[in-house]
């Protein structure tokens, strides 16, 4: 029942908020916060009730289309639990951030809740059709969030986001249909037990896997399918940027692990080198592109391309450390990039410019905020003691066993990451006070602090004591690795 409520509650809250469309802003925003608190209770229950040791346990099932072999099967396991929690934390903190912001009214918050319902739903789904429904369900609210509340070029960015993601998803739809007609079932467990035989990438398993892979590769995004991301990130409003970086991109990584590696291990092994090469290209090119940006949000977006490149490496290196690292990095990147977007969003609310050249001297205007910004940037670079380091270290050490060249090439990404982040920090945080900051006061309200600080604390905890998270996902990772090793039906 917890599983059902986890996605149903945000959906209901979204509808409730839509009913409050005429209510005063304060009422709407506090209601949103209260609704999030209730959602938090369900998330808390899911976290504490969770016992690692089983994969794909269905805790709620409704046989909605028996004739298609599909049911609304939901379950929580080590792959999905950390991301569900991350999704909740980010969304909860954003509802603090939105307090008092005039533009972020009932429609905005309702769309946000509906988006949460879609993203949590796709994490919970253990049925291909249900997964697809939730996956697509995220597109509509995100399209409106970018298109309505974004900055100047928002319509173009929203369309590009929608078109890219939808094009990828339709290939996945084709793959799901093929699976459904071939096996009469769409349940994740049944499909896994069916041990789909493999005869080359042109065979059934290969083609179906590629269909899934393209959809996830667009979402991650893997180079060269990444071009929608900088636009979407740059134009999106702060909240949408945070969720986009923190949750939506992560769903691509999650999708490959659950619907790619677990169901089609042999096809995945055949594309591994290609995917790892693309990941490494993403790391290097993403870093160089980030270095050259003059727009802060665009820079962070390209840094995401680079970081997600690491995760692709981790997924396809087929080493336990690497996969564990990818799963960990998923969270680490969600927190650090989420924090960067959030802090910059708070600054942007006051200055209304994203040009790096307009900034400078943030440290002398608001030392505390500058510290938080530098802290998040360091986490993003991968400074030891912060979570980014653990994730990248695990991924790279795993990759090194599989493919030394790729590992060495991507290692340069760590260095480049420091280069572009530090040069951005130098221009924005330090030095003489720039033209925009001269004319604007940067004073944070209490609720903005409440939205930022927990992220920093979490990063510190995750960086110092990652063990509690590994405990939750260890079994899932080992399980996938043993599946990859067993290699059925050659």
């Amino acid at each position, binding site marked *: 029942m917890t599983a059902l409520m986890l996605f149903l509650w945000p959906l209901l809250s979204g509808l409730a908020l839509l009913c409050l469309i005429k209510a005063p802003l304060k009422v709407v925003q506090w209601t949103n916060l209260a609704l999030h608190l209730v959602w938090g209770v369900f998330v808390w229950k899911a976290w504490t009730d969770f016992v690692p040791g089983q994969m794909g346990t269905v805790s709620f099932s409704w046989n909605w289309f028996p004739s298609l072999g599909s049911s609304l099967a939901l379950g929580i396991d080590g792959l999905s639990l950390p991301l569900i929690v991350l999704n909740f934390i980010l969304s909860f903190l954003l509802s603090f951030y939105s307090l008092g912001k005039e533009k972020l009214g009932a429609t905005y918050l309702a769309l946000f809740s509906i988006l949460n319902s879609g993203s949590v739903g796709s994490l919970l789904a253990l049925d291909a*059709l249900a997964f697809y429904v939730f996956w*697509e*369900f995220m597109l509509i609210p995100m*399209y409106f969030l970018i298109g309505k509340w974004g900055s100047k070029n*928002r*319509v173009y960015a929203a369309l590009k986001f929608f*078109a890219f993601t*939808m094009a990828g998803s339709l290939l996945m739809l084709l793959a799901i249909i093929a699976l459904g007609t071939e096996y009469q079932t769409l349940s994740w467990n049944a499909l896994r037990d069916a041990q789909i035989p493999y005869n080359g990438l042109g065979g059934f398993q290969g083609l179906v896997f590629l269909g899934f892979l393209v959809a996830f590769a667009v979402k991650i995004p893997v180079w060269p399918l990444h071009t929608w991301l900088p636009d979407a990130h740059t134009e999106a409003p702060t909240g949408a940027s945070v969720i986009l970086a923190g949750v939506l991109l992560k769903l691509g990584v999650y999708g490959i692990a659950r619907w790619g590696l677990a169901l089609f291990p042999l096809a995945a092994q055949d594309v591994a080198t290609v995917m790892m090469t693309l990941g490494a290209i993403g790391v290097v090119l993403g870093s160089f592109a980030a270095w050259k940006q003059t727009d802060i949000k665009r820079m962070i977006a390209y840094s995401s391309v680079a970081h997600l490149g690491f995760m692709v490496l981790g997924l396809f290196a087929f080493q336990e450390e690497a996969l564990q690292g990818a799963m960990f990095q998923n969270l680490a990147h969600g927190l650090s990039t989420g924090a960067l977007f959030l802090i910059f969003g708070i600054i942007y609310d006051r200055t209304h410019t994203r040009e790096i050249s307009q900034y400078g001297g943030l440290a002398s205007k608001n030392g505390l905020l500058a510290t938080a910004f530098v802290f998040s940037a360091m986490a993003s670079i991968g400074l030891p003691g912060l979570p980014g380091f653990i994730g990248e270290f695990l991924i790279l050490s795993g990759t090194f066993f599989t493919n030394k060249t790729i590992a060495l090439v991507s290692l340069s990404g760590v260095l480049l990451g420091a280069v572009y982040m530090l040069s951005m920090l130098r221009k924005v945080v330090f030095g003489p006070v720039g033209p925009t900051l001269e004319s604007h006061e940067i004073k944070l309200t209490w609720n903005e602090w409440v939205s930022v600080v927990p992220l920093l604390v979490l990063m510190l905890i995750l960086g110092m004591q990652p063990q509690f998270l590994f405990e939750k996902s260890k079994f899932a990772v080992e399980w996938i690795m043993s599946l990859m090793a067993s290699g059925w039906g050659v």
Partner: protein
Amino acid sequence: MNYPFFESEVFQLTNAHWVALSPYLVLCVGIVLTTIAAGFKAKVCTHRSLVGVTFVATALAAIYGLGSEAINFFGTSLLINDMLRWTILAIVGIGFLAALFVDEEEHGEWSTLLLISTVGLCLLPGARDWVAFFVYLETLAIPGYVLAGLRLRRDGGFEASLKYLLMGAFASALLLMGMTLVYGVAGSFDYAVIRDVVGRDLFSTMLVAGALLIAISSAFKVALAPVHMWAADIYQSAPTGIAAFLAGAGKVAVFMAMLSAFSASGFFEIAVFSKLFMIIGAASVIVGNLLALSQKNLRRMLAYSSVASAGYVALTLPVGETAGTAILLYLVTYALGFLLCFACLEGLVRITGKPSTASLEISDLKQVDSKKAGLIVALFSLGIFSMAGIPPLPGFLGKYLMISDLWSAGHTAAAIWIITGSMLGLAYYLKIMVPLYLDSPSGNKTVSLRSSVKGPLASAGLALVLMFVWVWAFAYMAPSNSDMSTARVEAR
């Protein structure tokens, strides 16, 4: 006195016969009542309620009959089975919603004509020989010509209805020609006999030519690609409710009739025929989507999008009756989505201040403040997204099932074609969203929901609810003759 004819078996009607016929009888009563009402110059709302009550009663009669055995009437003239009852339900449901927002003060006859046309629509899929098919098709078409021309003097109604009438007459001639050729080969109009001839490989080029002529003339009725030209004009200029009815209910009935007629006559067993038919479908997908992309007028754009959607169905038809459930589900969800959009247009046009929906352009939507007219805008976008096939809206499921049936029947290329078409379709569906939501409103008109908007709004809301109800009801109680799961096992 002795009347042997009336004592023959044909007229020995049992209780079951009356139950089966009751939907048609109810419709006939409605026709009489609306004619009387027109004689007394009743107001448009009287006509509306008469039509509405008739449709509800018809639906109840059809529901009452669900589950009973199939019955033949007059030899092969009419076969009433569960699939037909579901089709009737769909037709009268769409008709009911469309009638809610017919805004035709001048001509009271619209109600009678609408009901006569509905009788034809409800009979057509039940035909089991080509003469009956022709008679039912004309029964639905002739009132249709008049309905389409109700706005003769405005919005280009004259050109549109003349085009429709002339092309319709041409299509009827083609149908008769095709029937003649088929009869010449098979020696019968009976679907089953023709199928026998096809099955024994006795058929000739003449039969194939006849089948193709029949296909082209029915393709005209559902606006498939080479004969789709009338659709944009009619859907643009006819009164909004009538256009939604013709497009929605018309397509449901004619497509279901094509499905049963072509598969029962064995046409789909002729490889050349199936191939050519799928080419027609594929062409409609491309033509409809590309033309829709370039439209500025909203109703024209929706019209071309419906050409594309007819293409999806045409691609699936050759799978045969096993795909019946999927096709009916898709047709109904699409028709309801289409109707929902048209109903919303009727409301939106009052906000933009244009004289009628016929001249409503996509850019006019900029004047709509999505905050003040929240309900109507939200319904409109849900309708659009459902037609685009985005889950969890019902339009997705129909498309999913059709693609799934195509895939299991081995028509992989057609399945991919539908998906590609859907991608193209997204482009223009999203084009509507841009002025509606994303541009800041330029008009500062205050929106007052006059009573005249409430009809369309109610209709749109009901359409949305009905879409979901239909999906659930149909998914669980679909007639067994085209049960999806068994169909799939056979295909494998």
